[in-house]
């Protein structure tokens, strides 16, 4: 009984040690979801970028702060509800159909006002046919922001990769960083 209790105490302590309590942590050059089960994603980011901890799925990363620039990755499972639109992603969707659904999800977000599509085109992402859409909008405080919304279907999952930054100065400043990160995005 004493051994069992000691083992339980050790397990609890170990769980405590390996659990990252800090809300943010440096990405350390390359983010790897390290999933033991399910699809595993990776993306190279500059060493000074930080990632948000305690996310169940995907990545939220920034260098100077969430409001100044961010790169977000989320997995979108076919048939599962999206945060804003009632449309859903379906298996086997073509890139332009996926673009339509994910863009409409952003368009329906109550905090994204006056959304205007600046450009939308096919793009190869993680070695698969996807899309890249650039939009301009105002956030709920009226700040003009620009976003690059990308998406791709890999096997049975869709992946959404978004870069968002204030339209003035910051968007252009880190666009090249985002492009490099996007080119390094992999799903295994």
């Amino acid at each position, binding site marked *: 009984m004493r051994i069992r209790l000691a083992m339980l105490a050790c397990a609890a302590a170990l769980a405590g040690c390996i659990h990252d309590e800090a809300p943010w942590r440096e990405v350390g050059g390359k983010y790897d979801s390290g999933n033991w089960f399910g699809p595993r994603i990776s993306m190279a980011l500059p060493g000074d970028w930080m990632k948000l901890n305690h996310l169940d799925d995907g990545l939220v990363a920034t260098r100077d702060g969430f409001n100044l620039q961010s790169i977000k990755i989320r997995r979108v499972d076919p048939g599962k509800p999206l*945060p*804003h*639109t*009632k*449309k859903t992603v379906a298996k086997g969707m073509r890139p*332009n159909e996926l673009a*339509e659904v994910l863009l*409409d999800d952003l*368009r*329906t977000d*109550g*905090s994204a*006002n*006056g959304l205007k*599509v*600046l*450009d*939308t*085109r*096919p793009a190869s992402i993680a070695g698969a046919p996807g899309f890249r859409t650039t939009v301009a*909008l*105002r*956030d*709920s*405080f*009226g700040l003009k922001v620009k976003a690059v919304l990308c998406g791709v279907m890999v096997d049975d999952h869709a992946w959404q990769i978004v870069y968002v930054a204030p339209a003035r100065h910051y968007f252009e400043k880190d666009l090249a960083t985002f492009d490099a990160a996007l080119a390094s995005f992999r799903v295994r």
Partner: protein
Amino acid sequence: MTARARCAVAAALLVTACAVAPPRAARLPPVSAPGFAMERDERRLWREAAEMDARARKSGAVLEEAALERYLLGVARRLTPRAALDRLEVRVRVIESPGLSAFVSPDGGVFVTMGLLARLENEAQLAIVLGHELVHAVNRHAIVEYRTFKHGAALASALPFGLGELGTKAAVTGYSRDLEREADEEGLALVAAGGWDVAEATRPFEHLAAWVKEEEIEEPFLFATHPRLEERMESYRALLRTRYAGRRGGDLGKERYQGAVREIVLASARLDLAAGRFGPAEQGARAYLAVRPRAAEAHALLGDVARQRGGDGADAGPLAHYRTAVELDARCPEGQRGLGLALAKRNDRDAARSALRAYLRLSPDAVDRAWIEGDLAALEGRGR
């Protein structure tokens, strides 16, 4: 936070507030009363309302459509008692949302959504909504609610464009039952005095009830939260049976209204489509066609609805709508685009190419040019 989550938060706050409702604060004379003077805390509410208005406009959530604002303001001014007009900052803002909501700030700023404007059928119904909201401002309901519930939780941060934290809470979550009834009763009196047809009184609530059913939500969180919809309709029916029993006719203002909000109907239908609400999107497009039967863009929108909705006749349905759009107006880019893509899906290569080329000619700066050029390359066997 999603709209649904906001509704849940608002409902939870309201339920909490009702459960521990403190005694009602003393009523104040209306702003139209002689010798009206704003009280100190009320001044603060008004300042917040002005800030909220500025934030709303800056956020891009409010539609900038001068002609429409002028029309709505005209109806609001026709409703507002003269003495109150001198003291309130009466204005009407249209929120770019397909939902059905309306609320008023303490200083007389009415906010109404595109979705609600799109569903109302005539000016009399609009007057009923605006009249109800304006009574809250004229009778200073916000300050009464603020004083009654000032220790209640602030909802403001959860709402669009950061509404102020004080009396605006009541404005957007709905007022107490007695104040809502007062707004129903006196609002309808303003409608009658303005010469509109009071028989339309329950229609805005019927639209709300239909929306609540479509959206599968328990109650809309703005405009009609409290008392519940059915109670509100019954209160109007009782007024029509009693006070307005002998009153027949009145100004409906149907054509005037439909002319003013026509483009809102189509824009709201597009927002509904983006939100995946195919039924309301189709209804909106058809409502627009009822006013402009030869509007190619509305037929193209019906094609988009049919294409995205899928189901039986997933190919034939949209194709017929796009064909109609192009037959009505060959210069309709949305029609040509939809037609080209629908024909490409059917492998009708020549016709698809022709339509897609027409689309690119009509929209030289099309944001989706790269997609369409890719489709054209595939149709021409150049691969993609």
